[in-house]
């Protein structure tokens, strides 16, 4: 059974790159361009891990994260947050909000893969 990742990322090319990297490693990737339907997708798809971009149209990564942590059913879900802003302030805020791993863009592919294996493996 392949392991399942939910990817929420609005930049088409970045999403494609991540899907490719994980897909090659045997992961099944579901991609959403925005966070409007994030909870529903988690409840139906039951992913092992959520990769969440910070700057999203309509609903920011923080809002989605807060919604996940507030939901009893979803709260144990491991979350990997990505951002192009990559400043200390965002990192602190993300960790306070209960993110499991925080990665700045651009990232190395190996690092990304390692982080995903690490987080999903622990689940």
């Amino acid at each position, binding site marked *: 059974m392949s392991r399942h990742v939910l990817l929420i990322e609005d930049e088409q090319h970045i999403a494609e*790159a991540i899907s490719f990297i994980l897909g090659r490693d045997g992961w099944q990737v579901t991609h959403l361009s925005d966070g409007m339907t994030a909870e529903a997708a988690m409840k139906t798809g039951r992913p092992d891990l959520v990769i969440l971009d910070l700057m*999203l149209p309509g609903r920011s990564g923080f809002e989605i994260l807060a919604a996940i942590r507030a939901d009893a059913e979803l709260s144990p879900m491991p979350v990997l947050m990505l951002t*192009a*802003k990559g400043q200390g302030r965002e990192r602190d805020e993300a960790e306070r909000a209960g993110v499991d791993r925080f990665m700045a*863009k651009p990232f190395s*592919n190996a690092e990304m893969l390692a982080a995903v294996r690490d987080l999903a493996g622990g689940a």
Partner: protein
Amino acid sequence: MAFNLLVLACLAYVIFLFLVAFWVEDRAATGRTGWLRSPLVYTLSLSVYCTAWTFYGAVGYAARSGLEFLTIYLGPTLVFVGWWWILRKLVRIGRKHRITSIADLISSRYGKSNLLGVIVTLICVVAATPYIALQLQSVTLSFGAFVATGPADGPLPDSQATGVWVAGGLALFTILFGTRNLDANEQHPGVVTAIAVEAVVKLVALLAVGIFVVWGLAGGPLDVIERVNSSTIADWDLMPSRWAGLMFLSAAAVICLPRMFQVLVVENSDERHLATASWAFPLYLFAMSLFVVPIAVIGLERLPAGANPDLFVLTLPLSEGREGLAMLAFLGGFSSATSMVIVAAIALATMVSNHIVMPIVLAVLPKKAVAGDLRRIVLLARRVSIGAVLGMGYAYYALSGGSAALAAIGLISFVGAAQMLPALLGGIFWRGATRSGAALGLSVGFAVWAYTLFLPSFGEGAVIPVHVFTEGPFGLDWMRPRALFGVEGMDPLIHSAFWSLILNAGAFFLVSVLSFPGPVERVQGAAFVNIFDAEGAGPTGWSRGQAEPEALLIMAQRILGDDEALRFFSKSAEKQGKAGFLPDPTPDFIADLERRLSGSVGAATAHAMISQLAGRAAVSVEDLMAVASESAQIMEYSARLEAQQEELSRTARQLREANEKLTQLSVQKDAFLSQISHELRTPMTSIRAFSEIMMEGDMPPEMIARQARIINEEAIRLTRLLDDLLDLSVLENGTVQLNLELANLQGIIDRSLASSSHTRPERIFTIHRDLPSEGLYIRTDPDRLAQVFINLISNSRKYCDSANPELKIVVRHKGGRVTVDFIDNGSGIPKDKQALIFEKFARLTDQTRAGGAGLGLAICREIMANLGGTITYLPGQGGAAFRVTLPLRLEKPALA
């Protein structure tokens, strides 16, 4: 002479006047007024005082009553020679308070009371309608005189039909040139100049006939004097009561007649013109009356006994076979009649629309009136009013059948107009005059005038039954219309003038003394009476901050038009030390705006409209104390404090704005760095990820091709961002190279529309353009300008949230500057964001939706600065609207 030829001459003359008026309006529209606004034209326009009643009638008057006709000219002479007393003050008040009519003046003085406006309007309409009828009659009579002496080869004129044609033609002329626009303080340069031309024609005509009579028919001046003493005219005896009374009435009329007030006060473009008119207008009257007695004497001698002396000016040259001279005289009479009717119609229509129609419109549609297009309603009301005034004049003429009774209507109308005198003079010289006093005085005077003079003028038994004349109403002997309070044996005209004015002034004074004026009344009273005191106008009565400036702007646009309103608002904002189009709603600003609006719709209506937005005017006790304070020291002290405070608060406002902007800028600086980081890292992420994948090798060729293309696209995106940043920094430093050349604006707009159609091509935009206005050749950098246009159009394509998006491009050219407005029908930009949109990375909505980096408008602003122009956001256009302003010919790169 053939009737057809006469009609042809008339038509040619009228077409000539049309051309004059049109030419002047055209020049005025482009600001080239020059000599058109000279004291000469002003003086000549005052000649509407000399109507057909004086042109033809003065000779008849002299034939019947000797020198008494002179009183009609001597009264105005005294008023003008004594301009330092009254006229100077009236004109100053009229200009400072943007008075639109005599009704507006009285209404504005007495607390912007519309009740008074209505009363005065009614008096004016009632008094002027028969007078207009008289003019129509004189034209038809003069037609008749011509045809009667000529061979009967043409169709005989039907006097009713002639009247219809004349009234209709005048209505057309008046509507065309009297209601072309609402702007410019109710002035009509085209009409005024046409009137001035007519003034010359009538003066030349009368002088020509006079010279022909004195040197052609009689043997020079000495002979004429001989003949005067031997004619029946010398039987005339001066009646002191009529002599003094008529001089007084004509003096009052020259101020109070609506048409005189119109040319004297409303159309005045420069107070200094009055100094010239003070002697030049009496000179005009002098010249007009110089030959009246000689013409009358020779006419009595030469023409058959039954000849109508009212037409001597025309029939004398005709009977001597001087058709050319007679034609000139006819055109002179025609000019006198038409100029009076045109000006009277404009003046009355302004009153009717401002004081009767607009208040009703505002009362019936209180909400919609503020939102709807009021300019059209006002103009329509005015046009309909002009038609109605002339229609009433014609109806009066048709119903009265052009009876001889009409001849007396000139003086009757003077007495009616004189009823305004107490309220007018009391208003500008006496601060104690109150609204109740004025209302009662006017009503009493009007009623007495109607009862003792106007209604009896229709003939005994026509309106008032015969027995009332002999026994009084209900047997009340002292109420007989021609012998009020048992005063018998007086001349009926003087009797009426005497009683109506005494009772009018008495009621006005008594009620004024006994009543207490409201706050607005006291403020206005002080402002009018002390008009020559320097600027400090006292409290304005508006409280601060209740009105939303944008709402005020929208209302002002409805009345003044977009351009005028925006100019007024931006100038006011500048005066407050603010940038942009929206000044703070300070009491001073609101008072200014009210004054500006009242120049278009009258004081009472303007006050009511602003009250809808700013709340009721509240004058506090302290404000009134300041008005009432007579102490110069307190005034000076508070004035100085006020000036200081004004200065301080202006500085504070500027500082506050600067501080706000700095704070925002610092926040933006952080955001800018964070943004740059984000904008650079995002493409970098894809590039790094795919390049790492490719480095690992072992991939099918098509996959490699795809990933390489992505890397390439993202690299281009990075380059574009860097280009934009670089562009911006070059523009900001002013080191940009401009390629100036002569280019067609229309071409640039075409190109920009084509280029920007790639942005969200799925959206179908309706583009509104006015191609002829775009046909301008401008000297600029066309590529840079197109860059700005493309940016604005693309923004509109991206952000306009209307279901049926429309974009309007409006080009205007004025005084060496070109403005291009881009207005869409979306929801626009909220007010708190308007100041920010031209800053870097100031995207308003979600970052990704638009796809750009948020540098577009910042670049546009810098480009326009380099092109010697500006780009601003236009509030209140019903959508997002940007205005690009640039010089028609940019000589050298502007930014140093």
